[in-house]
């Protein structure tokens, strides 16, 4: 490896599916391939989060010198002289097997079954490992929670086939602010929450959070803890108010009209001013 190649912003040449590209060193192969219009399936990848390499669907075949091996593309940094194939027979076979395994792990996940069928897997050769399960342990929820909260509300527990995502000791979480980022990022719809009166019940995490109400109209607004969390993040200068969108709009409108009254403008003046250019010819 030359010294130039080691510089963080160095440009390196690499070949993906026979097409040579020059890209910045250490960019993820998955991103580069997708920019080239190559489709690679992923389940545990998200642009907002660091690559994790758990689902193994984005596997590609890499050749460098005399070595050829399979590896995930999401966490593969591009370096000089790699030759990457995203559709070699070994790649296709590996993806199919991974999908077979994910299918029997999460037989309820429609997304997995659809993806598997697209790849030509009609029926997995294994028995279902878990019933009524949609979770594929991709870790997106865990990572997004860590990224947003810093102090995670959920994490993995146990290891191997017993691995699971849960709150500490499976108890209702005290840390969860009810932001539902986990629910939104989950690729298989495993995480569900429901509004029950003035509480948000995230049954997957055995957790209920209290909802704040709009100070004006009294409608259910957002989880109390989430509101406090946002307030703390914004610091002293900006104080967001506990208002729903409609009430906030009303309030802003009222503020604007107050401003115009106090600054000496009247509605009539404004109308006259805007009307001026219209009068002409």
């Amino acid at each position: 490896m030359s010294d130039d190649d080691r510089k963080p912003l160095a440009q390196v040449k690499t070949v993906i599916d026979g097409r040579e590209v020059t890209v910045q060193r250490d960019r993820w192969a998955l991103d580069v391939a997708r920019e080239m219009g190559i489709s690679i399936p992923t389940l545990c990848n998200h642009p907002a989060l660091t690559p994790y390499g758990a689902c193994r669907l984005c596997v590609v075949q890499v050749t460098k010198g005399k070595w050829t091996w399979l590896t995930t593309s999401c966490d593969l940094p591009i370096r000089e002289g790699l030759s990457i194939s995203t559709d070699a027979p070994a790649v296709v076979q590996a993806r199919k097997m991974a999908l077979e395994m994910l299918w029997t792990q999460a037989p309820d996940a429609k997304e997995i079954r659809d993806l598997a069928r697209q790849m030509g897997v009609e029926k997995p050769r294994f028995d279902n490992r878990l019933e009524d399960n949609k979770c594929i342990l991709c870790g997106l929820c865990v990572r997004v929670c860590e990224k947003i909260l810093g102090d995670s509300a959920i994490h993995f527990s146990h290891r191997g086939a017993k691995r699971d995502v849960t709150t500490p000791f499976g108890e209702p979480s005290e840390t969860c602010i009810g932001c539902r980022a986990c629910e939104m990022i989950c690729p298989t719809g495993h995480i569900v929450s429901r509004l029950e009166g003035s509480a948000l019940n995230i049954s997957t995490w055995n957790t209920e959070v209290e909802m704040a109400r709009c100070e004006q109209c009294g409608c259910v607004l957002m989880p109390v803890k989430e509101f406090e969390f946002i307030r703390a993040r914004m610091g002293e200068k900006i104080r967001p108010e506990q208002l729903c969108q409609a009430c906030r709009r009303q309030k802003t409108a009222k503020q604007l009209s107050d401003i115009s009254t106090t600054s000496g403008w009247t509605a009539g003046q404004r109308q006259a001013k805007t009307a001026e250019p219209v009068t002409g010819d």
Partner: protein
Amino acid sequence: MGLCTCGLANGGGDVLAHIRDEVQKRRLDFVVHETGCVGFCEMEPIVDVLAPGLPRVFYHHVTTEEARELVRSLAAGDFQSESALMRLERDELLRQVDRPLTGKLNGLANVPQMNDVGFYKSQMKLALRNCGFIDPHNIDDYIATGGYASLAKVIQTMTPDEVVECIKQSGLRGRGGGGFATGRKWEACRKAEGRPKYVLCNGDEGDPGAFMDRSIMEGNPHAVLEGMAIGAYAIGSDRGYIYVRLEYPLAVENLRIAIQQAEQECLLGENILGTDFNFTIRISRGAGAFVCGESTALMASIEGQAGEPRAKHIHTSEKGLFGKPTNLNNVETWANVPVILDKGAEWFSSIGNENSKGTKVFSVVGKVKNTGLVEVPMGVTLRQIIFDIAGGIPDGRSFKGVQTGGPSGGCLPASQLDLPVDFDSLTEAGSMMGSGGMIVMDDRTCVVEVARYFTEFLCRESCGKCTACREGTLRMLELLEKITSGQAAPEDLGLLEEVCLHVRDNSICGLGKSAPNPTLSTLRYFREEYDAHVLDRKCPAGVCRALTKFRIDPEACKACGQCPKACPVSAISGGKKKVPAKIDQEKCVQCGLCRDACKFDAVTAT
């Protein structure tokens, strides 16, 4: 008194207490010391006696009564030479310092020399050099055998580049499993940008039946510390961690004492030996997950996170612990470093064969006469280790296979017995050096069951992060269980192989990548045994209960009465008063104890 875990497990603690008591009671001028393990675990508890001008004499299987008797007769000048195991005329095997033997040997002349005992004959102790000979709790013992001389030499007379060059020239390769060139690893970390740099020691030995690193940490902890200090000097690091599992409490304790003493003697800490070189070592205790022996999982664990690996496209020598350049070596590798600096790269590279230099420690267990720790030059054959050193297969049975490299290694058959034991040959044969576990099996071992056992271990120890390893090892286990319980269809063998290859090629870390080795190697070398299970519904070794029926040949039965006694479910009638024994198949649970009890081979498995 040998008081490694093996000595303690065999009652060494009691023996020591009795020796101390007897010495005190008789007000004898004896010094009683604890040492590590001399490797001959089969013979524990071992007591050795060192008298001025006389060779070191070893006694084996010492009971508390015998220990008291020994103290009494030693006080009277009688060495009980008829019960001694061996004698050692040199203080220490590596340095071969001859002590002046001025005393009269008398009866001791008949005691075999250590180097003539089969177990030690072909051994060469570098990493284990002081184990069993020095008191691990006493730094002076280590210094007296030349300990820390290499560190002093390195700091005072060599540049870091010279040290790296010396290790490179020696051809030392990582003893932890991968066999990566240590010198190149050090060089990469030395050149990497970023501070601080970390030097780590991997003491997370977790293979069933492996205890090489434990023995070194327990019996010679200063060798590890000295090696790490030398490595830190070469790499340019000022801090290090030893990662050791809490299941090794004695190792943790001995390392802790050793670090404390080395710091007191100015051999660790700040301004080592009066220079401006600083290096501190902390112990990081692991909770015993097998996956934490993997480098990135180990680092995550030290950082306080769950022990899970990550992709290593960016090497840990660039970004390792806390995102800083990190150099990780295994216990045995570190223990070798002072020897290399002391004796020189050329000397070290003259030991071993073309691509594997130096010696390797193996823990030889299973169906062998002499269970224990064996250190041999690289390139000796499996046959030499199993038959010459470990004494071959007991009870007149024959050799069937040997699992090298622990659960991640492979099972090699008799046809591979003349394979030279080195990194490349073992990998080529479908196994691996691993950290050096060696489990020997006799003809009453079912290799399918062995593969199932190791797969079960790996399935349980998989961290579960990646689909390939989490789901794959589970599917492998399911298929192997189907085979051993006689429910497998012929196409299951093909599926098993396919899953194995998938797990090998698609897992994140070494645990998953090597998890299929036991299955793949047994499929390669013992295919007929798999076929017998699947096609004929038979377990040729008579182990898999669902596929085995035991019968007693009335012609061969001598009605000795042993098998009815051995049967836990009273399924055997007769066997006494000249009536041949007979098994009631309804009651039989296929445990095989009757077969083990029979001295006339009248019990057969069908």
